[in-house]
């Protein structure tokens, strides 16, 4: 019976072994799953788990370099314009916060935050991180520490701090977040971002179970390289005074905005550069109109008007076509290509010298000079004075201006208008630099704003003034300086004078071109005054630009008095002895 049964089993068909087959199948399946899983863990996700394992017993830390600082000159020492500040940030781990409502109430009263907002932040039990407040004060820190609340912590964070507040804001810019990291935005902070930021380093070292680094094991240290420090050519007291004068002037005349630039003609160093309205880089996020961040001194282009006339006159004298006492007869207008160009206020002056042309700011006089020079040569002089090209100042978003009209040599009308500053768009920095050429004996210098670089190892690198080219002869420059002195004594620039000193300069009241259409805005003007002192040995060149003053029309009432105030301060601050009787 048993044999029979065995025999029956031996001859079972394969279908009858289904249990075994299923078992084998599942074993193979399990083996395959394990194999695939192992492959996935050890090969595909190798790097991930390697780094996880390393993270458990190693510390890898990116070493953040110290951002370089920015200084202003303050006599023989310096004043910190942008520094780094260690502050504390309060944050919460909501899942650790017991009694969220009670804690929210306590924190809200200490840190002066909305209680409801805190309750909302603490409400998510799975949340691991919520920022409560940045930049805690010492008092807030001690109060939070005293309470020792569960789930409430503090951590250090570095901030850029500007001790002088809004001073020189357009020059320095600020450090802000671009969404991912904090970088320099606008100004020097942006232009010198890479050099100021430095290079990040790293530290890789084993740690113990408590997370502390083990001092006796090897560590892979790549030290961070700190950023460079910059000392600007800007003088702190001058910048402060210039900003004050500009603010007063703009507010007094109800103007839209204004710009003042002070330059040392012999070196091209910028001693002050101010724009109003401005902003406080410590609270840059409070600014509603982003355009206020732009630096109009280098990025704003405008048709500067009569303040351009000395450039035409300098070109004529240098080219040997005129002398200060050369004469011509003014008929009150010039007709060209269907256009009629008249003098300001429609006046006719008759026979006039070139000096008188500048004193009275006669449009037809400079057209006469331009005709004598010729279009090609005039365009070349304009270019050599630095117009139509970026000056090279180390500030971001500098505009090159627009001198396209001077490319079409056959269109005389465009050269005629350019001779008195219309039809060519210039930037304030280009304009002051062209006056510095006249003040500096005919040499064009690169506007310089960085005086010194201090490297992380303490070595100092002085930045030398850079001569770009000679534009006019020394003799021609001297003659134009004398003519400009005459403008201040006898012409429209009287209010720019400083008693006891030889001050020279020229006013310019320009119309504002319409955007996207021909013609000029009705009733909108830009008043400028550019000049230097003392005219026999110029130490300072200054440009004042006041945009759209409401109470007065002419620059001699807006820009010229502001120029005088700034120049008076400079001459007294540098203890320059008066040479004239007063």
């Amino acid at each position, binding site marked *: 019976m048993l044999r029979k049964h065995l025999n029956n089993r031996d001859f079972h068909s394969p279908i009858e072994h289904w249990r075994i087959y299923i078992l084998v199948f599942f074993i193979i399946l399990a083996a395959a799953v394990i194999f695939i899983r192992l492959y996935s863990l050890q090969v595909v996700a190798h790097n991930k788990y390697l780094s996880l394992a390393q993270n458990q017993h190693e510390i890898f830390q990116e070493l953040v370099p110290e951002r370089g600082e920015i200084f202003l000159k303050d006599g023989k020492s310096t*004043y*910190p314009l942008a*520094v780094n500040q260690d502050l504390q940030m309060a944050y919460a781990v909501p899942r650790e916060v017991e009694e969220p409502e009670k804690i929210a109430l306590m924190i809200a009263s200490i840190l002066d935050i909305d209680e409801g907002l805190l309750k909302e932040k603490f409400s998510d039990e799975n949340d691991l991180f919520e920022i409560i407040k940045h930049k805690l004060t010492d008092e807030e820190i001690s109060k939070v520490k005293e309470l020792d609340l569960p789930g409430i912590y503090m951590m250090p964070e570095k901030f850029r701090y500007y001790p002088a507040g809004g001073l020189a804001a357009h020059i320095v810019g600020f450090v802000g977040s671009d969404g991912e990291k904090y970088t320099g935005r606008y100004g020097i902070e942006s232009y010198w971002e890479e050099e100021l930021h430095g290079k990040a380093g790293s530290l890789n070292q084993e740690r113990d179970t408590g997370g502390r680094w083990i001092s006796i094991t090897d560590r892979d240290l790549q030290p961070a390289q700190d950023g460079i420090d910059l000392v600007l050519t800007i003088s702190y007291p001058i910048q402060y005074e210039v900003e004050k004068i500009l603010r007063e002037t703009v507010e007094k005349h109800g103007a839209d905005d204004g710009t003042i630039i002070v330059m040392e003609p012999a070196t091209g160093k910028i001693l002050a550069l101010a724009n109003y309205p401005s902003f406080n880089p410590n609270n840059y996020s409070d600014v509603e109109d982003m355009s206020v961040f732009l630096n109009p001194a280098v990025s704003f282009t405008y048709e500067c008007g009569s303040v351009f006339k000395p450039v035409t006159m300098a070109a004529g004298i240098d080219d040997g076509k005129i002398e200060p006492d050369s004469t011509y007869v003014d008929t009150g207008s010039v007709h060209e290509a269907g256009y009629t160009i008249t003098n300001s206020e429609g006046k006719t002056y008759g026979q006039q010298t070139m000096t008188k042309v500048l004193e009275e700011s006669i449009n037809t006089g400079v057209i006469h000079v331009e005709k004598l020079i010729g279009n090609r040569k005039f365009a070349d002089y304009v270019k050599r004075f630095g117009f139509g090209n970026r000056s090279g100042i180390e500030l971001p978003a500098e505009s090159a201006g627009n001198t396209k009209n001077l490319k079409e040599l056959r269109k005389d009308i465009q050269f005629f208008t350019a001779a008195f500053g219309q039809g060519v768009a210039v930037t304030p920095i280009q304009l002051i630099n062209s006056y510095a050429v006249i003040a500096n004996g005919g040499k064009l210098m690169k506007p310089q704003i960085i005086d010194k670089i201090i490297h992380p190892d303490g070595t100092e690198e002085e930045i030398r003034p850079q001569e770009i080219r000679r534009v006019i002869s020394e003799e021609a420059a001297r003659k134009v300086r004398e003519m400009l002195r005459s403008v201040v004594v006898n012409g429209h620039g009287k209010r720019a004078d400083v008693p006891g000193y030889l001050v020279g300069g020229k006013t310019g009241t320009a119309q504002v071109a319409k955007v996207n259409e021909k013609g000029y805005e009705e009733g909108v003007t830009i008043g400028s005054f550019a000049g230097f002192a003392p005219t026999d040995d110029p130490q300072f060149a200054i440009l004042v630009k006041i945009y759209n003053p409401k109470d007065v029309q002419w620059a001699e009432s807006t820009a010229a008095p502001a120029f005088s105030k700034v120049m008076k301060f400079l001459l*007294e601050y540098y203890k320059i002895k008066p040479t004239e009787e007063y």
Partner: protein
Amino acid sequence: MIKRRIVAKRKNFHWQPSVHSIGGKPARHSLRPPATARHERAGRQALAGGTKIKSKQILGSINLSFVVVFFIILSGIIYMYSINNSAVKGYKIRQEEKEISGLKKSNEQLRIKEAELKSLYHIEEISKKLNMTELNNISYIDETSPVALR
């Protein structure tokens, strides 16, 4: 039943537990002299001849092993000491670094405070509170005159 006791001879005081014979035969091992006695005999033989060589060999082997053990222990101690020392130094460095960092931070705060106090905005504000007036006219003294020279 035979009861036999081996007693100490001469200077060899060696105690053997009492051995009881089974079935009148003495236990075999009880007839062997004790190990200490064998060693003494070997010692006497050594005294009779070749004493110097043997003693040297013994002394040499003791010294070598002693030196090896000594150096192992010594190097262990030195290793432990150096590890401990470097750990302590590492801790001290960490403390010093913390102190430097703290001093730097406080120096930085003082520098910022100084800059804020030196700020011309601040000075102007203070000067107004002190009823100081702005200087409008500057008189220059001629340095060639007798007054200026005094």
